[in-house]
């Protein structure tokens, strides 16, 4: 047997209160695409950070082509041929493409030479890119290209990709896979982290599955069913949300001719958005991040105000009302960003419950706060949504992402909204919690609430929505019923490959 490119042996890393990696061992062969599978919190990120030199293992060893390998910092890892594309892009918005790439290199050539090399490499791998554009103006797919090219310019032996497709349209994913296949054929190994099982089945040669920091199994993805892999990941059988055939009521929310500029410099303006949601209907809004999702949520919640007639609730114009007035009427929202938008990080859960619940739950009396009622409202959310926390007096920041997400969604659901708008309701939440959040949204719709679910997770949207529309550059496609929609059609609704050329290599 040949020596593997990278061999991990009994790697262990513990943080206070949690063992992130517990004696993890596996090998990555030369020219192999190796998948690392696991739920959120399974320890995938910690593991790759150790390989990339960002985190030092407590014990265990790594061998690179048979030689001991213990990078003290990312520079050393890069020098040994390890490159990494991050999940949350590690790019600098205000700098241009070439400057961003220069920052990721040890000895960058002068800017002019670098620019021509970027052009050359990006053409070779079918990822066209202009070196002098400001990164803040690029789409998510193009930003990822910047990261990939930054890695490729260093001729890596091992390319680590942390959830690379979470921000891409299906067509962009195809382009990416062609690039990765080309790299594999040239002998580059790839460590591919994802929890999207179908992707792993099409792309990867080998998979290692992590659960709670332990290596719980390996498999050859093309010979293993997605369901089997999922059950290895979760460690129990999966529950899919149930939905029953429903009748829709009258139109609850009617948006017509809505155009608003974005409040942020790098945001996307909404252009002529039309949609209606009936009572009991779930409208799924898909699209790649940064195509107007935040603005759509803002304009529906009342954070961004617009002309009165653009948004009608039960026939009543509400476009000029602020968030509190809309809450009073029954239009509730749960934004994407948990810490800082949906919840105030340093305030307790009780205080956070008050912040959106005061109007509908009557937690306020002539400007005085009813703390005991608020506390019982918070406790109600905690018990109904199985939020794991010692109690409502804990700060929102102290909860894990998934638990806080259950809390902020539960807080809105329990206020019995007539219209509920949620953005990325299960972002960064593990499979079991995600299923319970989806079920609660479906239950709410069954009781007659009109729900708009904005999400980048297409599987989730297909699972819970009755109709589907996609945001592309601030425009919303005409909603269609979800039954019978194909992935290709969805991709086209989402804007195809964003005007980018498909790779021909």
């Amino acid at each position, binding site marked *: 047997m040949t020596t593997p490119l990278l061999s991990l042996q009994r790697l262990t890393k513990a943080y206070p209160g949690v063992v992130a990696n517990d004696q993890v061992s596996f090998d990555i062969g030369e020219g192999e695409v190796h998948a690392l599978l696991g739920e959120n919190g399974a320890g995938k990120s910690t593991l790759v950070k150790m390989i990339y*030199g*960002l985190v030092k293992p407590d014990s265990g060893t790594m061998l690179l082509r048979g030689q001991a390998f213990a990078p003290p*910092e*990312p*520079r050393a890892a*890069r020098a040994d041929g390890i490159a990494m594309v*991050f999940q949350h*892009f*590690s*790019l*600098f*918005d*205000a*700098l241009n493409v070439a*400057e961003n790439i*220069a*920052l*990721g290199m040890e000895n*960058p050539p002068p800017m002019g030479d670098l620019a021509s090399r970027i052009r050359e490499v990006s053409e070779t791998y079918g990822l066209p890119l202009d070196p002098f554009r400001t990164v803040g103006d690029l789409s998510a797919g193009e930003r990822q290209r910047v990261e990939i090219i930054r890695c490729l310019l260093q001729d890596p032996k091992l390319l680590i990709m942390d959830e690379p497709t979470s921000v891409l349209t299906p067509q962009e994913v195809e382009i990416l896979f062609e690039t990765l296949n080309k790299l594999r054929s040239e002998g580059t190994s790839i460590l591919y982290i994802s929890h999207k099982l179908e992707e792993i089945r099409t792309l990867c040669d080998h998979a290692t599955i992590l659960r709670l920091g332990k290596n719980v199994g390996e498999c050859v993805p093309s010979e293993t069913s997605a369901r089997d892999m999922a059950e290895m990941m979760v460690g129990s059988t999966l529950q899919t949300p149930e939905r029953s055939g429903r009748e829709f009521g009258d139109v609850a929310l009617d948006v017509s001719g809505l155009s608003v500029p974005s409040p942020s*410099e790098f945001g996307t303006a909404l252009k002529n958005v039309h949609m209606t949601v009936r009572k009991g209907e779930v409208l799924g809004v898909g699209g790649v991040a940064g195509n107007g999702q935040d603005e759509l949520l803002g304009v529906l919640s009342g954070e961004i105000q617009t002309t009165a007639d653009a948004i009608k609730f039960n026939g009543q114009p509400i476009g000029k009302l602020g968030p509190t007035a809309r809450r009073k009427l029954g239009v509730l929202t749960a934004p994407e960003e948990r810490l800082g938008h949906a919840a105030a990080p340093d305030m307790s859960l009780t205080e956070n419950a008050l912040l959106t619940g005061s109007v509908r739950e009557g937690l306020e009396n002539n400007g005085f706060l009813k703390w005991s009622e608020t506390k019982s409202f918070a406790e109600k959310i905690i018990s109904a949504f199985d939020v794991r926390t010692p109690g409502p007096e804990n700060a929102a920041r102290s909860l894990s992402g998934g638990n806080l997400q259950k809390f902020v969604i539960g807080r809105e659901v329990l206020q019995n909204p007539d219209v509920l708008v949620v953005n990325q309701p299960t972002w960064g939440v593990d499979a079991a919690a995600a299923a319970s959040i989806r079920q609660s949204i479906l239950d709410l719709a069954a009781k007659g609430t009109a729900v708009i679910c904005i999400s980048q997770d297409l599987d989730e949207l297909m699972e819970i929505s009755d109709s589907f529309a996609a945001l592309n550059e601030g425009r919303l496609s005409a909603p269609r019923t979800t039954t019978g929609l194909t992935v290709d059609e969805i991709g086209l609704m989402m804007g195809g490959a964003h005007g980018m050329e498909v790779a021909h290599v």
Partner: protein
Amino acid sequence: MDLGEINPVLLIASLMVAATPLLLAAIGELVVEKAGVLNLGVEGMMIVGAISGFAISVETGSPWLGFIAAAIGGAVLSLLFVLLTQFALANQVASGLALTLFGLGFSALLGQGYVGVKPPSMGDIHIPLISDIPVIGPILFQHDPILYVGIALTAAVWVVLKYTRVGLILRAVGENHDAAHALGYKVIKIRILAILFGGACAGLGGAYISLIRVPQWTEGMTAGVGWIALALVVFASWKPWRALLGAYLFGGITVLQLNLQAAGVAIPVEYLAMSPYIITILVLVILSADKSSAPASLGRIFHASH
């Protein structure tokens, strides 16, 4: 009223002198802010620089040693800011304000024996030939060396930030410290060096006031120049040449309004005295209407744990 008494050549020459302390402090703070740190202690570092420079040049008789001491004094005081914000992770606004208050008090203590003392003079550079050119000579080529240091520093900071790798890394740290850390750059180290540079520049600016512009020592003699420098950095959109322009504009109007006061113009003194602040800010606000914005990590605490 006699406007004829105002000599335009002297006016322009003295506006450069009036602008230099502001320019030095602003260039230092510009580098600090480009690295993502907001140090509101400029005024405190300037006044400490003013007294250390004054004391050392009186004791040694050498203005050059005085200026070196001023730079060291400002940098040492900024070290306190480094300890508070980069290691103890304290709030930068509060730490900066504390630095200013501390600097003002500490300099008054140090300066008790120096009130009324006259410092050694630095003397102007007289370059043969070009300094004798009429009009241009007295305006541009008959100044003290530190004034030219200020201009050279502006050019150097511009070149470094725009064209060198060191500058690129500094901007990257100020733009997104988490990403810079993920790429393996030493965020804290780079910020410490930037803060020390800012402290040294502020110290030089302070000493320029006590050794050249005034020249004597009085308590609180920087009189808010540090605060103007802070505002200047923002309104100059973090661009070195605009900071120079703003500093000269401010210096120019300060000198002009003094001349107008002396000439007895029929505008109340209070209006004249406030005019440099209003006009400088107005012009720079108009200039800064383009899309350039603050370094994205400005004022945010960095901790490597996440």
